């Protein structure tokens, strides 16, 4: 059936979320999570969320969650982004790794890693891409050779978001050098302080150093840190890739809040007597409509998942849509700001401390990470539409 009203139970859940977030919102904006100081400030915010029971609401209560269903989680995300509280430094772990640990982890792994992730004690980074393995992920060369109770890792990972200061890295490595491509890979959890692991921050497009490359030189990791079965790394990883592209990583709340801010920006400019080009008015409206389209598409999909369906290759449709919507939305803001668009936060005339410029630069990464949009369009064409691979 279709009933798009919130039931009293969901309404009171929304109120509870909103009240808690407003009561606990930090007094001052935190530093960027991609600087050493800002990273630790964001870790403290994770702890505040955890102590309030709001860091991982969709998880089982045994691991620090509150057993929210998918609708509650979407409501929580809307409230989260509208409240203006800090972003989530734990997002890579919570969105990408946790679903994999729930699916493939041993009881010991779940009991150890999940509560620490929920509390922000362990912040995770993703170690998948390599210098010669980006879109072609199956080309990875980093080797992990079994030696008794350990794997000995040699090779290099790169473009690891949050990788410069993360506590743990979740990696895909080649454990069987005689196998090629998708075979012989293993999903391995690596502590960032393991001997033989070195990392070097890379300045991102915005100049901040949270991005990292990671070098392994005879780095020894216990076999207990294999997630799923040895040699099954590709299948284990792809379960997380679905999450990354689909509902988990980018919920509608984020874009609905951004679209509202854009509308407010346009209104403020109009109220201050600026003439807004009709084409820009159209663009602002289009951004707002797209955020609503993403919202209702997500609720539509969530209802399907709650009925027992699974999100398969359709996740690629969502990834292309939200990432390109985000770019367009911020590009529209830049055009609205005109000659103030380029101003850095320190400039006296900067608008909202350069937030739109920051947002624009960040949005530009969306069509690249989590599988480029070109790869996603191939997946849509081949697996959703059924077009021939070659």
């Amino acid at each position, binding site marked *: 059936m279709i009933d798009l009203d919130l039931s009293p139970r969901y309404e009171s859940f929304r109120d509870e979320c909103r009240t808690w977030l407003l009561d606990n919102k930090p007094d001052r904006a935190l530093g960027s999570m991609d600087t050493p100081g800002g990273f630790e400030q964001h870790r403290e915010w994770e702890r505040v969320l955890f102590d309030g029971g709001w860091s991982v609401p969709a998880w089982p209560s045994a691991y620090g969650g509150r057993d929210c269903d998918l609708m509650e989680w979407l409501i929580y995300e809307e409230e989260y982004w509208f409240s203006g509280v800090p972003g989530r430094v734990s997002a890579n772990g919570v969105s990408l790794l946790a679903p994999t640990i729930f699916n493939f982890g041993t009881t010991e792994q779940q009991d150890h890693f999940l509560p620490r992730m929920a509390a922000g004690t362990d912040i995770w980074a993703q170690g998948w891409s390599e210098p010669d393995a980006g879109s072609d992920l199956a080309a990875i060369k980093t080797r992990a050779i079994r030696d008794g109770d350990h794997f000995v890792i040699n090779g290099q990972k790169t473009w690891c978001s949050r990788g410069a200061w993360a506590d743990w890295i979740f990696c895909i490595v080649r454990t069987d050098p005689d196998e090629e491509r998708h075979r012989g890979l293993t999903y391995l959890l690596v502590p960032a302080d393991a001997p033989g692991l070195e990392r070097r921050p890379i300045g991102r497009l915005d100049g901040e150093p949270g991005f990292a490359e990671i070098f392994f030189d005879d780095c020894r990791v216990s076999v207990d840190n294999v997630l799923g079965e040895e040699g099954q790394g590709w299948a284990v990883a792809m379960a997380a890739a679905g999450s990354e592209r689909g509902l988990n990583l980018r919920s509608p709340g984020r874009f609905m809040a951004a679209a509202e801010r854009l509308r407010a920006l346009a209104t403020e400019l109009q109220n201050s007597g600026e003439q807004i080009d009709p084409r820009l008015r159209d663009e602002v409206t289009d951004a707002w409509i797209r955020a609503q389209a993403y919202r*209702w598409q997500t609720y539509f999909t969530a*209802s399907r998942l709650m009925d027992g369906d699974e999100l398969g290759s359709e996740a690629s449709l969502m990834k*292309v849509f939200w990432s390109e919507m985000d770019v367009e939305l911020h590009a529209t803001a830049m055009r609205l700001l005109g000659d103030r668009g380029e101003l850095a936060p320190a400039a006296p005339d900067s608008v909202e401390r350069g937030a739109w410029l920051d947002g624009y630069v960040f949005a530009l990464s969306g069509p690249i990470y989590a599988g480029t949009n070109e790869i*996603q369009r191939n997946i849509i064409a081949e697996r959703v*539409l059924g077009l021939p691979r070659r």
Partner: protein
Amino acid sequence: MRFSFSDEQDMFRDTVRDLLSDRCSPAAVRASWDSDDGRVPGLWSALGEVGVMAVLAPETVGGLAMGEIDLVRPLEEAGYAGVPEPLAEHAGVAAPALAEGGATDLAQAAVAGDITCSIGLGAGGRYVLAAEIADLLVMERSGELYAVPSSAATLTPQPSVDQSRRLCEVGFEVADATVLVGADVGVASDRAVLFAAAQCLGVARKLLDATVDYVGTRHQFGKPVGSYQAVKHQLSDVRIAIDFAAPLVYRAAWSIGADSTTMFDRRRDVSMAKAVASDAVDRACRVALQCHGAIGYTIEYDLQLWLKRGWALSSAWGDAGFHRDRVADSLGI
């Protein structure tokens, strides 16, 4: 909060889909281009029998008293099949307006499919579809709806690029018409826009399916043209446009029928739906033609039937720009 169609709604949609694939083939749509009345023989009464025309009307006139959400996907199917008759106008707007306006006998006849109705409203409804074959026209004037026998109206044909869409400019005297007291012009207009959006979705889906089939079989340089990324990516974009338009169309259908929404919400939801549905069908038309190549540019090939329907429906009842503008007004920008 629940956003999944029920099994009954799925079954009703499937019934209409099966009926149309049986009775409204591309050959039948093509034949309607050249026939005197532009109709598909036998289709109207068959649609009446499965209850499509009864969905929105109350039980007092033999209707099913269901909602816009129950009719939105059957009318998407009408777009998919290329139904040339004024089904959306009749079932989606005229039949409930006649009932709401107290024209009980006419509403009963409309619900049973014994008569054919069409509509002419203000914005987006200047040309009335199928006015010459319709028995009755539901027309707007000065904020009121009127039931006008088409025999009493002045009809000036305005031929469309889609020759199955027989359009007329319609003049009438209030003295010849019955005012439909209690029928709301705003609701009628929202329904007309919504069901045009639903048909846009159906046309877009048809264009995508036809093109996916074609590029899978057409070979160049020794392999299917559908294996080239330049083709794949265009078709992926059509799929994305459709998948992100459909929930807004369903949302608008729910919104019109919900007690908790205001007139303001409904108007905005309907305009969002038509804006994205028009954009989706525009893109589908462009990509379908480009990926077919020269064969798609011929009058003999069936693709042209849906291309022209797509062009027409994209602008009918307000194009994307018109509806984005209405949304902008509602947002205060």
